[in-house]
């Protein structure tokens, strides 16, 4: 469902961010994308949601291909993805409910269906009681739950999470991680970029490790030993 085929991404100013990267995340899988800061995790995620094209190689995501995708197709792809960031990326002047509803409104969803769908995902992330609160009134963990609810509301085929626990304390981290596991158990693939090795080791999952922009280890291939933490 997500396939990297010999992907290289060069930036004119900073040089190569990814070099000849290939991996495959099948449908419904829970996968980690790990590596130290600057290893290329965020670049890999940006290529998946097609914020930019690779310099060479190809990224395939749920029927869309970087080499063939047109500008008008990018929004269609993103509606099939849920994206969660370390800094939550919530609209500060909208309530939790409005932030989630916004992701449906942009797709042109019928007004009558928006309310129930928003409440369903807010309930799923455990925030039904705080639907009318603004992000500033919520804790970091709660804000991330709103972001996850927003990512889920369009029933994505895969949820991309870029260091989703990076700004959270240990307790909130465990809560968010469990939530992502639950979402995966319900059938949505999850690709979580993280450098938190404790989290990675805590569950058996597909692991792709990047080092200096190249795949250092892919548990699906299991040909190379994982790098020492």
């Amino acid at each position, binding site marked *: 469902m997500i396939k990297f085929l010999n992907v290289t991404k060069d930036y004119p100013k900073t040089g190569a961010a990814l070099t000849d990267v290939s991996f495959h995340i099948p449908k419904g899988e829970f996968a980690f994308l790990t590596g130290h800061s600057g290893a290329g995790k965020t670049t890999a995620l940006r290529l998946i949601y097609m914020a930019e094209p690779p310099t060479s190689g190809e990224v395939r995501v749920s029927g869309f291909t970087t080499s063939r995708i047109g500008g008008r197709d990018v929004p269609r792809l993103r509606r099939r993805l849920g994206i969660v960031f370390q800094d939550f990326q919530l609209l500060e002047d909208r309530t939790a409910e409005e932030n989630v509803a*916004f*992701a449906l*409104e942009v*797709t042109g969803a019928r007004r009558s269906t928006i309310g129930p769908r928003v409440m369903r995902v807010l309930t799923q992330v455990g925030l039904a009681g705080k639907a009318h609160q603004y992000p500033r009134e919520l804790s970091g963990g709660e804000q991330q739950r709103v972001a996850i609810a927003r990512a889920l509301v369009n029933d994505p085929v895969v949820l991309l999470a870029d260091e989703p626990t990076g700004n959270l304390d240990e307790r909130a981290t465990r809560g968010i991680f469990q939530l992502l596991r639950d979402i995966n158990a319900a059938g949505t693939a999850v690709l979580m970029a993280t450098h938190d090795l404790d989290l990675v080791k805590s569950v058996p999952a597909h692991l792709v490790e990047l080092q200096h922009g190249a795949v250092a280890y892919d548990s699906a291939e299991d040909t190379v030993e994982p790098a020492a933490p």
Partner: protein
Amino acid sequence: MRLVLRETMLAFRRAPLLSALSISTIAFSLFVFGLFGLVAVNIHAAIGTAAERVEVVAYLRRGTPIEAVTLGIADIQAFPEVESVGHISEAEALARARRELPEFQDIFEDLEVNPLPASLEVRLKPEFRNATTASTVAERLKAFHFVEDVRFGNDWVQKLDRLRTIATAAGTVIGAAFALVAIIIIGNTIRMAVLHRSREIAIMRLVGATDGFIRRPFLLEGLTKGLLGGLLALGLCYGAWSLVGIYHAAEFFTPTESALGVAAGGLLGLLRSLLSVGRHLRSV
């Protein structure tokens, strides 16, 4: 459409101070341009009034039969530059001289023979009230056999022409400079409003909003700010004009010019929004 309206309203509600600042900045930059416009309109009107006096007078030979003059008038009336032709008989010329030159009253009293010739007063159409056309028409009038002499105040008309040329050139240059400043200020104001919401644009893109969906509320916001700024500027111009009007009668913009000014504000707001949002959309 309802969503676009709601998002636009929300943008004004969320940042009322920024919106008010944007609108007032747009209004003041258009106001300065409008003030210049008012000065230009009034100079133009003053020149127009002076130009109304531009006419070519053909003095007729004594004894010309009135039938020949009548036919000639019809011919002259057909000149494309001519607005109207008035025939002043010898008696009318004398009566007018008596009326307009009271200081020569004694001389007129003692006259035994009317020394003043009959004449044709040829008024030109507004766009032809200049030295070149007046001179051309004068030459053509001289060709009529019953015309003895033609006068049109060559020096005076040439001075008027020069004044008109200077006013037009200065008006164009200064007007273009004011317009450019207004465009830059309005552009930057709208751009800052878009910059203020660049994060929102990025989030909209990430949740799958199409470019059109993202753009529409910004366009409506830019248009609204431009129109409101334009209306405010028009009000300020009207206030300034009324103030001047206490001391000196002056011309104001016609309804069409006023509407065009306000529409220009709206259009500038719209175009700049389109440009600024487009730039952000390409970067996410």
